[in-house]
């Protein structure tokens, strides 16, 4: 099971859990499983073409998946996945 870090902006969808253990061989599989367990999650991550929205970055360990193999990036059980959306707050 890989560890997925949920950003604060999306925690209301996961019952305020900040990290989840999810099974999957690729980033895409893990995010699909996340959406099955927490309905509405996929809608927040993907655009109408099924691509990750451009103001959200998904990292496997320290690397962003656009620099790897996108949603097809393979994931090992000890990997961590971070979902990092743009945040504007500063004051």
């Amino acid at each position, binding site marked *: 099971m890989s560890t997925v870090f949920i950003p604060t902006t999306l925690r209301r969808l996961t019952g305020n859990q*900040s990290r989840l253990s999810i099974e999957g061989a690729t980033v895409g599989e893990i995010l699909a499983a996340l959406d099955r367990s927490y309905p509405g999650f996929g809608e927040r991550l993907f655009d109408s073409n099924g691509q990750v929205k*451009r103001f959200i*970055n998904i990292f496997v360990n*320290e690397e962003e998946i656009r620099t790897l193999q996108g949603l097809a990036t393979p994931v090992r059980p000890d990997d961590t996945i971070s979902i990092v*959306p*743009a945040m504007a*707050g*500063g*004051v």
Partner: protein
Amino acid sequence: MRSYLSRDQLLARLRAEVPELSPREVHERMQRDPSLTVIDIREEEEWLQGHVPGARHISRSFLELQIEFIQPDRQAPIVLYCAGGTRSLLAAHNLHELGYENVISMRTGFSGWVNAGLPFKVPRALRPDQRERYARHLILPELGEEGQLRLLDARVLIVGAGGLGSPAALYLAAAGVGVIGIVDYDNVDRTNLQRQILHGESTVGVPKVESAIQRLKDLNPDVEVIGYRQPLTAANAFDILRGYDVVLNGSDNFPTRYLVNDACHLLGIPLVDASIFMFEGQVTVYQPADPARAIEGGPCYRCLYPDPPPPGEVPSCAEAGVLGVLPGIIGSIQAVEAIKLITRIGRPLVGRLLMYDALEQSFRTLHVRRDPACPLCGEHPTITELIDYEQFCGVAALPTPTAAISMPLPVAPQTVAR
């Protein structure tokens, strides 16, 4: 009976042990190898009256304690000099005991250097009160007098005198950053005081830039604080940002974030960017390439977030709340990065996104890469001037237009001089 040496016998023995070079030979060697470690071991007052250009200063009394910060390699050649060539012999002997194998003493010392007509540098000196104020910086070998003078010469612009801008401004003023510009059109209100530590009960209702100027001048009268009591827009951004060495972003909306990113990139100013939300913060440095200083440059905000979220998709701190201490931590990290950029020490947070989660009490660092297709800093840029950011983000940068905003703005920024 224990044998002893006279002063002259000790020096004669050291002269036989320690290799010596004349000032001219040292000068030639420095020309050939600019990375040669040359250390002035005289007292601070002597160093300040003039020293060999390119030399580092460690008083002899701190030499063994600090040498490893400057040269940890025991095989590397190290040239020591003092005023006349005697103290450097003794000091060379001390370094030898630490295992340094290639320590050279400069014969006749700095006076010999000057007499040989070689160039020397008289450093700009701090005033006695500055020496006292910045004492804890001055003893850091990484900063020292040179780093402190760089801070005193530096100009930093802070966008937003709010949660992030407050701690950043306070620490930068305390550190002696020469000019701090602050852009904020807002007035202090009581809900700010839970986290915006620049302001206080006595400045509720006062423009934030005025409140900031009062507080920062009290903290450090050395610092010139320039307030820009106006919203940052595509029309005024270049005029405000130009001339600053570093920009810190502490704004609270996407249009301003894209505007600051684009303006900094187009002006070639490093941007220390951060944002916060509830219990979580992000910090990174966007460093434009600077071939003149051999700086390769890193990604920009648009590499990381090519498009803004649609309006309403990401709630604001005003809607969702923010732990008051959170901007204290993140804004302080911004101040650290600004100081590192100014004094050119350490590894800046370029190409790395630092994530902080207060509930987990965890820091994580993620790699961010330059996007070759970035419309601003990529290979074929399409954004070559500032654009309409409210249209780009589909949202107004100013959440609630008020009378204060639509009022004509003062032509000159409010300035409180040194």
